[in-house]
């Protein structure tokens, strides 16, 4: 992406010549190309303006209003944000979002890393295993959560039956405030690991064989090979997986809606679900939009922080990209 931004940057020009350029674009031989360019872009750009750019700007207005859709919006300034500070459920859902994200993402990436390492061996049937691990990823979350909801049933579910076979009295999973979030995390990781695994596997396959040969000649142990060859060479892929997984985890919605419906006692209500409930169950459009803005800012801050931290641990990371 860095390269594309660099090519997109046009060279700085004085104002007059830019205007002249603009005029030139509509005369002579270049006229056809200019018009063709705009026409080719038009269907896409129209959709972009109407369904993305406009809603973003509109969101800034909505979050400053009290609006139930039944009557006209009332402009109330930053009142929604004042309400938020005192809203116990907002804080609860914020904590839940962080709990979910910062447990699910590291555990998921940890497991994906070992799976990718195992799949990177030269053995037969690797593609078969890769496909199997990836299947949950493309299954719709609603269906996956439905299956797991049934698996988690305390009395008749499969998990507690399996646990019973080895002599463990299983918890009530999604019906218990302590266990509901771990249950969602297990299900989400089962579903989502394929993505991280695939990226890490591609990263591993991109490490030149010579590096390992050289380290073998130097007498490096397998731990040293991991520490000084694999991990540094894989760090850009790990970085990428961390950033996209964090962004994705903060936006997770479907599994919470289907698996636990946010319960019991709001134990699994993340910000996304709370935004949805406020906007489309209680019809507080203004408050919902304000909550969405907070979620967006959190995602933005965490992403920017990742880019800054990356300089310390990602191999060959350049900050000016």
């Amino acid at each position, binding site marked *: 992406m860095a390269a594309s931004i660099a090519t997109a940057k046009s060279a700085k020009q004085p104002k007059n010549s830019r205007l002249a350029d603009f005029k030139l674009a509509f005369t002579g031989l270049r006229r056809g190309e200019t018009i063709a360019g705009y026409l080719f872009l038009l*269907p896409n750009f129209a959709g972009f303006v109407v369904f993305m750019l406009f809603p973003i700007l509109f969101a800034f207005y*909505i979050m400053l209003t009290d609006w139930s859709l039944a009557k006209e919006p009332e402009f109330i300034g930053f009142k929604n944000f004042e309400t938020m500070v005192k809203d116990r459920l907002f804080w609860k859902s914020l904590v839940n979002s962080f709990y979910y994200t910062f447990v699910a993402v590291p555990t998921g990436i940890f497991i994906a890393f070992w799976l990718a390492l195992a799949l990177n061996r030269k053995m037969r049937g690797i593609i078969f295993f890769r496909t199997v691990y990836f299947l949950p990823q*493309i299954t*719709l979350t609603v269906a996956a959560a439905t299956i797991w909801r049934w698996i988690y049933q305390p009395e008749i579910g499969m998990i507690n039956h399996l646990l019973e076979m080895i002599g463990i009295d299983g918890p009530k999973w999604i019906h218990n405030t302590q266990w509901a979030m771990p249950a969602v995390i297990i299900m989400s990781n089962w579903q989502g690991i394929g993505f991280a695994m695939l990226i890490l596997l591609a990263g591993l396959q991109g490490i030149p064989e010579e590096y390992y040969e050289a380290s073998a000649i130097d007498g490096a142990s397998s731990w040293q090979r991991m520490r000084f060859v694999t991990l540094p060479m894989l760090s850009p892929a790990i970085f990428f997986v961390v950033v996209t997984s964090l962004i994705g985890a903060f936006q997770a919605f479907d599994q919470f809606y289907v698996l636990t419906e946010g319960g019991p006692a709001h134990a699994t209500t993340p910000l996304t679900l709370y935004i949805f409930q406020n*906007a489309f169950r209680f019809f507080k459009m203004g408050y919902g939009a304000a909550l969405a803005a907070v979620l967006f800012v959190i995602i933005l801050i965490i992403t920017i922080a990742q880019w800054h931290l990356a300089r310390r641990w990602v191999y060959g990371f350049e900050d000016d990209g």
Partner: protein
Amino acid sequence: MATASAIKGSLFGQKQTKILTDLLVYAVLSIVGIIFILPFAWMVANSFKDIRGIYTYPPEFIPEVWHFSNYTEAWTTTYFDLGFLNSAIVAASVVLGQVFTASLAGYAFARLRFPGRDKIFLLYISLMMLPFIVLMIPLYVQMRAFGWVSTLQAVIVPFLFTPWGTFMMRQFMVTIPRELEDAARIDGCGFFRTYWLIILPLTKPALATLAIFTFVNTWNMFLWPLIILGKPKVKTLPLLLASLQNQSGMRTPWHLIMAAATFVVIPVLIAFIVGQKYYVRGIVTSGIKGGG
């Protein structure tokens, strides 16, 4: 003699170690594989049981009697036939629309020179990762103003364009050698004919990647349809599947839900297995699951 056998032994040992590690890795991969497959197998197995079989404890993996009627029952109750049609219409329209708008715009960004091009492209890139949750409330209000609430166009039209897909197209088209186009232009092809006859055929792999991604994402789309599609007759499959569990009743009809889940999942599994090559490459090169 002793040293020879020692050398032989160590060589033998090395090979043996490799085989042993391989076996160990296979064992681990298989166990993990079973964990990944088990919920699917459980879903299919239960889709053939009756309500008594479902609530039997301890659970039986293989149904005592196979009830194929669950599928017809799940299909006919709660508008599943209509839901299938709705999902198919939405997925087909969005796939065709995105491939069309993204490839056209991708070509404009990659090849044609016009004022403002690079600025617009930067705008696209910067909004590529925008969370949908930020858009959903204003978009809902907008759909309401258009009178599109509970209509299929509300889940089609806003998704006919894609910043991510446009970006991918542009990146792919930049790599196509210019000479091919120049030859066509010299032969008197217009811009649209050049795009249609030269560029599109060369872009097939990228188009396939975009199409499969978009299909899977659209078929699985849940949050936005949940918000905008209220009436039963316009609901898509994921909505119907989710609403099955929330029906009030004595006992949740898990056998029907599992049958329903099975045939909601199947089209995506087929799309994935057919297009796995393109899907995997799409993830590896662009690293994006796509926005729901």
